[in-house]
């Protein structure tokens, strides 16, 4: 394997990890506040469609991005109404949202564009442009530093934003009042309630942030990673993000590590059809399944148990 291949694979890793990272942080914030969300996939898909559709119509990717975030937040609020206001089953609500998105995107895409449930290909300003970091051409041939800098350069703005979201999420969660209350409401809502803070408002806040981040994930998927929307284009990424969140045990920095690992697995699986490790051929499907297998192992507690936020999944009912 030469350097150029490695650079390519790692560049691709960063790109593939970006939507996962947004979605993973989205899930992390929602679940930290005690609202389980297995509807990440659906929100991403809806956002992917809206971003591509509106970017195509307007010719401006940022208009598309705004629409994507809006659509994703709307789905988030549906989830909020079901699981916070009406104290419904959060898991079932998540399942419903995934299907809702899977259906509506195709129905509307077909109606708007008549291309079999896809949007027309995006080009020019309707796509996210790559940003070359300064002096990238100058340092390209410097050993070690050159390839690393090359890997980091030439991505869409959202890639950089996604990775900036990691320290930001960490800071908000662990260094601000909002973060303290958010984590508290996911662990023991009664403590928050008796401290005179509204549980409902906090949870809606978390769910809305989750929607915004899923919106960014979907927008990047359709206008950055690809050039347009196709049916079911999230292809399980929402669940990989969920897996990454569990793998990271609901911690932002670890989440970045997890999505980079899962992104790398995907990049390698895309690049090579068969991989030999220590002389044994590993089928590409094993690479694809690895994130899920790792998550089950973590969930089973064989290597460090993943303990979700204690109040996660349950609506808050006042009692004493």
């Amino acid at each position, binding site marked *: 394997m030469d350097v150029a291949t490695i650079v390519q694979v790692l560049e691709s890793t960063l790109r593939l990890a970006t939507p996962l990272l947004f979605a993973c942080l989205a899930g992390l914030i929602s679940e930290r506040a005690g609202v389980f969300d297995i509807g990440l996939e659906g929100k991403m898909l809806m956002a992917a469609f809206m971003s591509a559709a509106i970017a195509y119509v307007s010719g401006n990717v940022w208009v598309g991005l705004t629409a994507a975030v809006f659509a994703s937040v709307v789905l988030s609020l549906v989830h909020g109404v079901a699981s916070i206001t009406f104290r419904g089953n959060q898991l079932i609500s998540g399942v419903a949202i995934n299907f809702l998105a899977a259906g509506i995107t195709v129905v509307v895409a077909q109606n708007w564009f008549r291309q079999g449930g896809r949007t027309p290909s995006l080009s020019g300003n309707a796509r996210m442009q790559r940003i070359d970091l300064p002096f990238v051409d100058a340092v390209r041939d410097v050993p070690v530093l050159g390839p690393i800098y090359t890997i980091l350069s030439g991505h869409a703005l959202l890639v950089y934003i996604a990775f900036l979201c990691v320290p930001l999420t960490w800071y908000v969660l662990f260094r601000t009042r909002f973060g*303290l209350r958010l984590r508290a409401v996911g662990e*023991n809502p009664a*403590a*928050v309630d008796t*401290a005179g*803070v509204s549980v409902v408002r906090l949870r809606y806040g978390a769910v809305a942030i989750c929607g915004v981040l899923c919106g960014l994930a979907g927008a990047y998927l359709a206008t950055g990673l690809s050039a347009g929307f196709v049916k079911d284009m999230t292809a399980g990424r929402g669940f990989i993000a969920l897996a990454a969140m569990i793998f990271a045990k609901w911690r932002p920095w670890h989440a970045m590590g997890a999505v980079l690992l899962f992104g790398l697995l995907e990049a390698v699986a895309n690049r090579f059809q068969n991989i030999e490790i220590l002389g044994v051929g590993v089928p590409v499907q094993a690479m694809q399944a690895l994130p899920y297998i790792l998550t089950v192992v973590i969930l089973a507690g064989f290597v460090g148990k993943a303990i979700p936020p*204690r109040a996660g999944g349950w609506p808050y009912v*006042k009692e004493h």
Partner: protein
Amino acid sequence: MALNEPAMRQETAASDNAIELRGISKAFGSVQANKDISIRVRRGTIHGIVGENGAGKSTLMSILFGFYRADSGEIFINGKPTEITDSESAIRAGIGMVFQHFKLVENFTVLENVILGAEAGGLLRPSLARARGLLKDLAREFELNVDPDANIEDLSVGHQQRVEILKALYREADILILDEPTGVLTPSEADHLFRILKGLKEQGKTIILITHKLREIMDVTDDVSVMRRGEMVATRVTAQTSPTELAELMVGRKVLLRVEKTPAEPGAEVLRVENLRHVDGQGVERLRGISFGIRKGEILGIAGVSGNGQSELLEVLSGLREAEGQVVLDNEALPLSGSGCDGQSRRARRIAHVPEDRQRRGLVMNFHAWENIALGYHHDPLYNPSRWRMDNPAIIRDTEGKMSAFDVRPPDPQLKASGFSGGNQQKLVLAREIEYEPDLLLVGQPTRGVDIGAIEFIHQRLIRLRDAGAAILLISVELDEIMALSDRIIVMFDGRIMGERMPDETNAQELGLMMAGMA
């Protein structure tokens, strides 16, 4: 800050009331939890509120902290009429509450718990620094030392309780309400708590102490109010009353329940319990070395205010909790953990159990009466003609018999458990458990929420089972029920046995004192 200027305030306001309630009433459905309650709590005092289970103490305090709205009545804080609509307004009015079940975030540090909801600004660092400084002061002043950086889950229960007090003080509470604060504490922790409370009082804080332990009332309070059946029956200056008077006020002059029964003719010992210990999921030792025995043909009553280990005792004996110690039934040890310690194994040893909470444990509320009759006995060969098939008609026939034997109304096996009245639900459970003619019947709160007619019926059935030679362990918070039914009485307090009395050699006052830890 209020903390620094209390001495002066105490001077000028010693005669004022920190809290005055006028005519507070609250009903839940048809149950009147609080009836026209009026009370005055002098500022800078420790005011005790005592009463039996269900006397309405907790409801009253929940109204004060904004969990419930009173149906009628007024609240005055420092002489000002105050609307308390939620926890936030209660906190604003200067009220702090230490709940029986702490409201702490387990994996947060002490500091984080203290500032939660009362942070100074959007960033945590200044809030945490401020709280750290204040905690240091409070620790020095009131012996409230806790490591500010420890995680709650690593702290003992006593320390967790201090965090709750610190939370209230951090919010500048002038009025502190503590609901049964010593229920989870060891004696030395409790002494420590009272030193803290006295220190706070000296600083001008007002403290309301809800408890059923008369010794605590006598030791630390200035005034004491007694509640009974939702009413405030009396308020006394503690120095001018006695435990005996308070116990009388709590219990009231009830019409004594009479149960027709012949003297017991106890036979050989059926159950022997030695040095039974149980630590619950929170790490609190609920049973601290219990020993007793029950003989054939006798009813052993266990009196006590709820929360003193009786429930745990019942669940250990019925196989629902694991414990340490020895229990011997019919000369054979009863496993207290692992396999052999579950509901089925206990039934196989002819132990029947009428659980305290029939709606949660004793019945599946969404099951038909006949399905509930099979609960726990679903392996009975009568119900299972073959390895797989369950003979529903046979169960229904059996249910019809049991329902008529126990006069369950309506006698409809197809009715769901939730469709019966409380008394008939209980008869259903009793019918199931008694008709198997157990050697030992464990029965908890047999007449809680049961109408008068059914109470008499249930009591007669228990006597009849005793006369048939069974041993019965009866747990009830109703003292008169214990006195009317038991052939022997044990009083439990704080996980221990306070003493044993024969019903005709004791009276409610003596038992009431024992239940309150005064022996």
